[in-house]
């Protein structure tokens, strides 16, 4: 049985189309990433899967339970962490956790082993009101509350948005540990670099699926040659590379520009072209694409269609 089966889901809010016919499957026990910017439809999809929203069209099921008919069954086995911090700010850390445990008919001590690693970090502040916690601690508490009833499947809606790089890294380490316990995780994120931490990902853009696959396969499907080009003047470099006749796209990536071309380049040719434009410190290197390169490439193709 699949952890989630999604078939041709459509969803619109008034005029705005949030999901335009999405189909995919999530395997049991994997970390599945929904990757895309705001407006891609990630939150709508998660809300449909957690039985919070009706799809306009199409079906979805979680462990074989239909999200419309068997919503009660799903609500028993799903853990959910909404995008916005949504715990009771006027209750303490401990009170929040106890409350969520008891509405699922369990106790904190029963499943403490599951949340131990996370909860230990906030336990010194267990008497503090949740509203007075720092951002990172709130996030850990929210995850603890979503986990306390030992869900079979965990839905995380943008858990790392607005969170600094260090806390993000810690958060993903926690998710990896949960995967080992056998919990299926569906997580959404706008950060493309997090895709590589998932077993499989769905790349989403404006309610459409760009691709669903393992990160490695998505990278393998990349159909251009890619170069990392460096020079002293990054902004000028982008402009000049775009005027280069073999360029498909040129975008800044960190301190280099990723240049995609249809065919293999002779490095000297590019070197010469840039020298003529007056660049200094030129370096050209053939590189493997990342998920972000692939995403941008797929976006461009979708726009061309």
């Amino acid at each position: 049985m699949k952890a989630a089966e999604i078939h041709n889901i459509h969803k619109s809010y008034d005029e705005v189309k949030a999901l335009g016919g999405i189909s995919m499957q999530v395997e049991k026990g994997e970390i599945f990433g929904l990757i895309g910017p705001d407006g891609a439809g990630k939150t709508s999809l998660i809300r449909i899967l957690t039985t919070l929203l009706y799809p306009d069209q199409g079906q979805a099921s979680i462990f074989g339970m239909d999200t419309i008919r068997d919503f009660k069954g799903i609500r028993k086995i799903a853990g959910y962490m909404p995008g916005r911090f949504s715990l009771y700010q006027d209750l303490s850390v401990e009170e929040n956790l106890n409350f969520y445990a008891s509405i699922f008919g369990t106790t904190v001590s029963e499943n403490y082993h599951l949340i131990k690693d996370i909860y230990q970090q906030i336990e010194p502040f267990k008497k503090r009101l949740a509203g007075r916690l720092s951002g990172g601690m709130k996030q850990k508490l929210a995850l603890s509350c979503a986990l306390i009833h030992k869900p079979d499947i965990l839905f995380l809606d943008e858990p790392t948005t607005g969170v600094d790089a260090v806390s993000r890294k810690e958060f993903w380490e926690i998710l990896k540990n949960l995967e080992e316990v056998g919990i299926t995780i569906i997580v959404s994120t706008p950060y493309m670099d997090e895709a590589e931490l998932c077993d499989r990902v769905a790349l989403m853009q404006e309610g459409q699926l760009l691709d669903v696959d393992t990160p490695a396969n998505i990278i393998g499907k990349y159909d251009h040659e890619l170069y990392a080009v460096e020079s002293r003047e990054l902004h000028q470099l982008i402009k000049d590379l775009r005027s280069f006749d073999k360029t498909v796209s040129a975008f800044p990536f960190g301190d280099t520009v990723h240049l995609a071309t249809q065919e293999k380049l002779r490095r000297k040719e590019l070197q010469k072209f840039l020298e003529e434009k007056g660049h200094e410190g030129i370096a050209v290197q053939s590189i493997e694409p990342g998920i972000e390169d692939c995403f941008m490439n797929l976006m461009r193709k979708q726009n061309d269609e």
Partner: protein
Amino acid sequence: MTNENIIEVENLVKKFGKFTANDRLTFQVKKGEILGFLGANGAGKTTAIKILCGISAPTSGKVSVAGFDAVKHPEKIKQNIGYMSQKFSLYDDLTIRENFRLFGGIYGLSRKSIRQRTEELLKRLELYEYRNRILEALPLGWKQKLAFSVAIMHHPQVVFLDEPTSGVDPVTRRQFWELIYEASEEGKTIFVTTHYMDEAEYCDTVSMMVAGQIRAFGEPRELKTEYGVKSVNDLFIKLARN
């Protein structure tokens, strides 16, 4: 970038009760410079930005922005800066043009220059034909670019951008940075915070705040060499974890 300092901060301290949010910050930013202001959540970035914008007074220390003292003339500073954040942007229920007119009016531009700037900036974004659209239904990426244009409409000397690209798609994110580059080339100083570490590499200078202090400050290239790391992301993790 010129050698003229547009932001000068010396021993800036801000305390909330016993808690020190900003601990003896000292740095300068030059005209036209793009400064990436980085730090973990709760490191004290927002507090520092509020002081630089003249919204909040420092506990002690000297702060001057665009030639004005942040303690004595905060209102003068406000006239000379632009501000944009993910949270405060434009009014969703007004059209693009109405938003421009409103914010132009707030900054005291004449009707004529509001009209000129609106046309100029919208044509640059290739959104001029949409000028009578209500903002609400527009894509997030457009809104962020429009918000940036509004923030630079009155030709401020410094523009503060607080996580301007959060949640924006990768292509629009890069287009946004091209707008930042252009503003910098026009001589505007850019003060930007972000959680996308690759964006930190696009800055002329990055500042890394840890627990209220500036732990590292300099060109990304030099800092990476100095700390022996491959990217600003690694630098961030290295410094923030200690």
